C-alpha cells in the first residue's frame, strides 16, 4: 500500500504529477487552483522537473506545446478564465498530437465571475473549446483520491493516444481536504521518437506542426484525428453506477455535484423512491451507450442531470436518450452548492407529475 496523507485536492494533484514522472510544469496563478503551482514551486528543489512561472496562460499553454513537442511529460493547470485564454494553444496541441496534461479547476462564470466552484466549463471542455474539429480526453475527479488517480491516468492516456488530456474538476474538489493514498513514484522513460530532441545522424529531422495548408492534407489530418477519437471512444469510456439496477429516476452527475447526488439517491430510497446515479468519470468520451441502455429499460421513468450550471451536460444526456424518456436538469450557479434536499424535492415533484 502507498503512503497515506491528508491533503487538499489541488496539492494531491500536484503530488500525483510529480509521482507520475512529470518533467515540466508551466503555470500562472489563479484561484481556486493556485495551490498547484505553489506546491510544485515548494517541492521543486527535491525533484528533477522544470518549473516556469509563466507570464500568462497564453504563455503556459505554448510552453506546454514546446515541452510536449520536445518529448517531455508536461503539465499546466488553471481555472476557467485561464482555460479560456489557452484555447488557441489547446487546438494547436490537439492538431499536432502532443501528449500533455491540462487541469481546469473551474470556477463560476461567465466573465471574471466568482472564485467559487462551478461546472460551467463543460461545453468548453468536451465540445472542443478552441477552433476546429478536435476533442480532449476529459477526466472528472470527484474526490481528492481521484485527483491523484486521474492525474496519473491523464498522463498515461495522453501518452497512449498522443493527445492532450484534461482534468476538469471544480474549486470544491480542488480546495477540499481528504485522506489520500499516494502511489509509489513512477520511473518514467519517454519513448517518443517523433520528438524534437536534436536531429541525430541516424534519422530524418523531426518537426512539430499543426499547419496543413493544402485542403486535401487538412482533410486527411482530420480523418486521422477522427480515427483516433473513435478508438478512444471505443476503449476509454469510464463511469460509476450507484444503485442503478432498479432505478426509476436516473441522476446523471459528475464532479462535486455527483457527491451530493449520491446522497439524494439514499434519501430518496429511504422514502421508497428508486433513484440511481450514473457518474461519468470520463466526460469525453461520454458514457453514451450506458445512457442509451438505461433509457431503453422499462423501469426507467426519467433522467435528471444535476450540474452546477444552467444546463450543459444535460444536452449530451438528451442526445443519447434520444427522446425515449424525459430528461430534466437541476442546477445552481455562482458557486452555490446544491443541497440533497433541494435536488430531491425537484426529483419528487417531477416523479409525482408522472
Amino acid at each position, binding site marked *: 500500500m502507498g503512503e497515506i496523507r491528508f491533503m487538499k485536492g489541488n496539492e494531491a494533484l500536484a503530488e500525483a504529477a510529480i509521482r507520475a514522472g512529470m518533467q515540466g510544469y508551466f503555470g500562472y496563478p489563479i484561484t481556486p487552483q493556485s495551490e498547484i503551482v505553489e506546491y510544485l514551486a515548494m517541492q521543486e528543489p527535491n525533484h528533477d522537473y522544470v518549473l516556469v512561472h*509563466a*507570464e500568462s496562460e497564453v504563455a503556459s499553454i505554448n510552453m506546454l506545446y514546446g515541452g510536449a513537442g*520536445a518529448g517531455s511529460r508536461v503539465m499546466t493547470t488553471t481555472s476557467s478564465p485561464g482555460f479560456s485564454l489557452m484555447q488557441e494553444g489547446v487546438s494547436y496541441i490537439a492538431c499536432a498530437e502532443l501528449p500533455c496534461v491540462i487541469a481546469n479547476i473551474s470556477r463560476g462564470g461567465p466573465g471574471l465571475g466568482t472564485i467559487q466552484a462551478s461546472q460551467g466549463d463543460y461545453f468548453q471542455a468536451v465540445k472542443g473549446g478552441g477552433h476546429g474539429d478536435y476533442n480532449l480526453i476529459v477526466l472528472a475527479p470527484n474526490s481528492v483520491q481521484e485527483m491523484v488517480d486521474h492525474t496519473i491516468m491523464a498522463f498515461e492516456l495522453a501518452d497512449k493516444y498522443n493527445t492532450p488530456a484534461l482534468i476538469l474538476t471544480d474549486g470544491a474538489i480542488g480546495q477540499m481536504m481528504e485522506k489520500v493514498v499516494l502511489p509509489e513514484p513512477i520511473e518514467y522513460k519517454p519513448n517518443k521518437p517523433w520528438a524534437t530532441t536534436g*536531429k541525430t545522424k541516424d534519422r530524418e529531422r523531426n518537426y512539430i506542426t499543426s499547419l496543413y495548408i493544402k485542403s486535401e492534407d487538412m482533410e486527411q489530418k482530420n480523418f486521422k484525428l477522427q480515427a483516433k477519437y473513435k478508438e478512444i471512444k471505443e476503449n476509454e469510456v469510464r463511469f460509476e453506477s450507484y444503485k442503478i439496477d432498479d432505478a426509476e429516476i436516473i441522476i446523471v452527475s459528475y464532479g462535486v455535484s455527483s457527491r451530493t447526488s449520491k446522497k439524494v439517491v439514499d434519501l430518496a430510497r429511504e422514502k421508497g423512491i428508486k433513484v440511481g446515479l450514473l457518474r461519468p468519470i470520463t466526460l469525453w468520451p461520454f458514457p453514451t451507450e450506458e445512457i442509451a441502455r438505461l433509457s431503453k429499460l422499462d423501469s426507467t421513468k426519467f433522467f435528471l442531470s444535476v450540474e452546477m450550471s444552467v444546463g450543459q451536460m444535460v444536452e449530451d444526456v438528451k442526445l443519447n436518450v434520444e427522446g425515449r424518456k424525459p430528461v430534466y436538469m437541476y442546477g445552481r450557479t455562482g458557486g452555490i452548492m446544491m443541497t440533497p434536499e433541494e435536488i430531491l424535492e425537484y426529483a419528487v415533484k417531477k416523479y409525482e407529475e408522472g
Partner: protein
Amino acid sequence: MREGYEVVYKRPKSLIETRMHYCPGCFHGTVHKLLMEVLDEMEIVEKTIGVCPVGCSVFAYDYMNVDMQEAAHGRAAAVATAISRLHPDKYVFSYQGDGDLAAIGTAETIHACNRGENIVFIFINNGIYGMTGGQMAPTTLKGQITTTSPHGRDPINAGMPLKMSEIVSGFDGVAYVERVSCNTAGNARKTKKALEKAMKISEQKIGTSFIEVISNCPSGWKCTPVQSLDWIKDEQIPYFPLGVIKEPGK
C-alpha cells in the same frame, strides 16, 4: 562542374534542396542560408532545435534540416523557453517576424528575454506583415504606406516604430543584441558573424541573444527587390541603426 572551377557560393548542407516559397529577392531565404551555414560550420546541427513562427517563415521547417517546432502566432518565445529548459544542453533558436515577435507576441518576447532564457532570437524586421498581404507592423516606418495605413503610418494613431533591440538590451537577462541587415554582401557577412557569435554565447549559457535583421518585403512594399535595397539604406537603417547594441562583458 567545369574543370578548374570551384564552387565558392554554395548551398549549405543543412539547407534542404527544394524550391522555396519566398518571393524573389526576399531576405528570409538569405537568412535561412546564413543560419544553416553557421550550424554546419559549427557542427551543431545535432544539438540544435529551432522554432518557427506564424508569418512568411512558417514553413522554415521545410527548408532547415534540423529538428523544429512551428509555434502559434507570437508564441515562439514561450515554445522555445520550454524546449530550452527541458534540453539545457541544446542550442535553441527562435526565428520570428516583426508582427509575430513585436506585436501579438510582445509579452512572450519580453518575458523570455527578461528571464534570460538561453534562446537565440532571430528577428526578421521587414516593417510589414508579409504573410497576410502587407499590413502595418509595429515596426512600419512613420509615413510608410501599407494596406492598413494607406495614407502612411500616422504616429498619432499608431505610435512610432518599435525598437525591440533597444528595449530588450535593457534587460539583465540579455547577453547580446546586434542589429544587422542583408542589403549588401558585406552586411550579409556581418549577419552571419552575428549568428555565429550568438550560437557561441548560447554554448556559454550566459543569457539571451537577440539578432535583429533589417529585412525587406518586396511584395508587401510593392517594389522591386533592387528598390527594396534602396529603401533599407535610405529609410530603414537611419531609423534602425545597425551594429552591436549589447555584448557580453561590455
